[in-house]
């Protein structure tokens, strides 16, 4: 009886999990299905199943430009935000300076600000300074919003970091550079990897900031949004699928790189 109740519970739990996963993935699968049509309206089931949209997308010059623009912004944002956030997180972990708590709050404030308003404010600001909006200003706008997120991510990983380890290493004869390489960076590494992923993905998928600040350059989400609103064709879901694949590739590559780095560390430990 007890065993049967348990197995019933187990199957209910499995069903629930499947339901959650299905709800998460059905919209994405629908987009993928929509890309396999050749009509300008979403009809289902398709009268003809075709991959023409993909052929068009790959042949189109726009596809490459969109990806390149978004990729350039995302990589720039990733690199800069990781550098800035690492120093910020270390300042929180290592020093107890006056106004530390207040600064921590202020740093997170942009997160609470509605992104379209932030984007508009930044556009006004760029115009006042006489800067022509382009993909670079969009990257700047992304940084304003993403650096706090990444600082938070890295700070959390540094929460249990014992800064005395740096004193100990220095006292044991390490140079400042050796302390950085042997103690500080290994402690930061997990936070840096997750922070970098966050930064890339948040920038890659950002619409509200890019709309206002990218000027004549168009990012992927901007193009997808405008072509969904007007002038829809199956090329829109096709490009969305391609963009998803690209970001999945980036995340996958990062995961492989990370496990390789871990493997090397492990080998060193065993030697």
């Amino acid at each position, binding site marked *: 009886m007890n065993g049967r109740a348990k197995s019933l519970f187990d199957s209910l739990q499995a069903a629930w999990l499947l339901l959650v996963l299905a709800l998460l993935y059905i919209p994405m699968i629908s987009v993928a299905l929509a890309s396999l049509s050749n009509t300008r309206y979403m009809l289902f089931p398709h009268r003809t199943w075709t991959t023409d949209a993909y052929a068009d997308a790959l042949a189109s010059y726009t596809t490459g430009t969109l990806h390149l623009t978004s990729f350039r912004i995302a990589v720039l944002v990733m690199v800069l935000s990781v550098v800035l956030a690492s120093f910020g997180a270390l300042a929180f972990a290592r020093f107890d300076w006056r106004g530390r708590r207040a600064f921590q709050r202020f740093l997170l404030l942009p997160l609470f600000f509605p992104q379209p308003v932030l984007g508009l404010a930044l556009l006004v600001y760029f115009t006042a300074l006489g800067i022509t909006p382009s993909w670079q200003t969009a990257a700047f706008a992304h940084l304003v919003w993403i650096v706090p997120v990444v600082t938070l991510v890295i700070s959390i990983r540094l929460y249990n970091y014992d800064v*005395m380890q740096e*004193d*100990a290493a220095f*006292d*044991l004869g*390490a*140079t400042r550079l*050796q302390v950085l390489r042997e103690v500080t960076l290994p402690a930061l590494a997990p936070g840096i990897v997750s922070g970098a992923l966050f930064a890339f993905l948040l920038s890659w998928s950002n619409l509200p900031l890019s709309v206002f600040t990218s000027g004549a350059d168009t990012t992927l989400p901007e193009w997808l949004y405008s072509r969904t609103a007007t002038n829809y064709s199956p090329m829109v879901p096709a490009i969305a699928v391609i963009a998803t694949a690209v970001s999945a590739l980036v995340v996958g590559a990062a995961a492989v790189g990370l496990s390789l780095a871990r493997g090397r560390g492990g080998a060193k*430990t065993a*030697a």
Partner: protein
Amino acid sequence: MGTILSTRAVSKRFGDVIALDDVSLEIREGEFFTIVGPSGSGKSTLLRILAGLETPAAGRVRLRDTDITDVPANRRPTCMVFQNLALFSHRTVGENIEFSQKMKGVPPHERREHALDMMRIVRLPESYYGRRVTHCSGGEQQRVALARALASDPEILFFDEPLSSIDYRLRKILEVEMKDLHRRTGKTFVYITHSLEEAMVMSDRIAIMKAGRIVQTGTPTDIYYRPANRFVAEFMGEVNVFELANGQIAELGIAAPTGATGYLAVRPEFLRKLNDGERADVRFPATVANDYMLGSRTHYHLDTGKRILVAEVAAGQAAEIIVGAKAEWGFDLSDAALLDE
């Protein structure tokens, strides 16, 4: 024994707080030197200055005949065992111990041999070499920290209260091991603690700090029986302090030694119950108010009617002392210390 490490008029302040005020001390070659003081007395700051992790605002630090005030920690022949041990948490026991040699570029197999030697010295089993430090117990981590410090072959080892977070039984074992390690290595140990007991058990000499200054330096016996002032006397364990006023021992109403002013300090073990006809320099009647069994000895609180005094009696001699009984008690002036302040 020559002087290995000395400071002259070292001062340090953090904002408005004076951490160290004109501290001069001399540590002798090969001794176990302990700096004792309550928290906030500046002892940790002093140790960090001696180790080169902090620079003094004024004053000089010398290693034998060389001024090392401006030499940073990584170029001093000294090493510190930190209060929280500061082990490299993402590394193994072996990697922790080998760290200093790795920084010097010693090849791996030599480092390993050396690390295993160090582990033998601190009595860590060889099998711990590949274990992560986070998987070691508190006592084992303590030994790893010791071995890591010893592996850099320092002339002086500093200890920043490494036993403070360890439970009583293990601390007693480690205190004995520490003293034994000092004897076997022959290195100079400079230890700081807020525990008088720890200091007395291990040290050759003790310096007592209060509010950024050194109040007294001496052997444990010196400091225990001949304290420089009330602070030291009271800090170094239970003591009965009498004020001397108008040629009298106040509160007892007994004539003070001629010409003496200030305070008279008597350790509990020197107060004794007087038998009929037994003489003592100072004698007074008192009622036994309470007894506190401490194992090998018992503490009694004596009520003289004006204040409570503490007397200590060895276990074998406690039989005739009864709580509530009134008797004559006393002590000899040769067992008491005269204090100016």
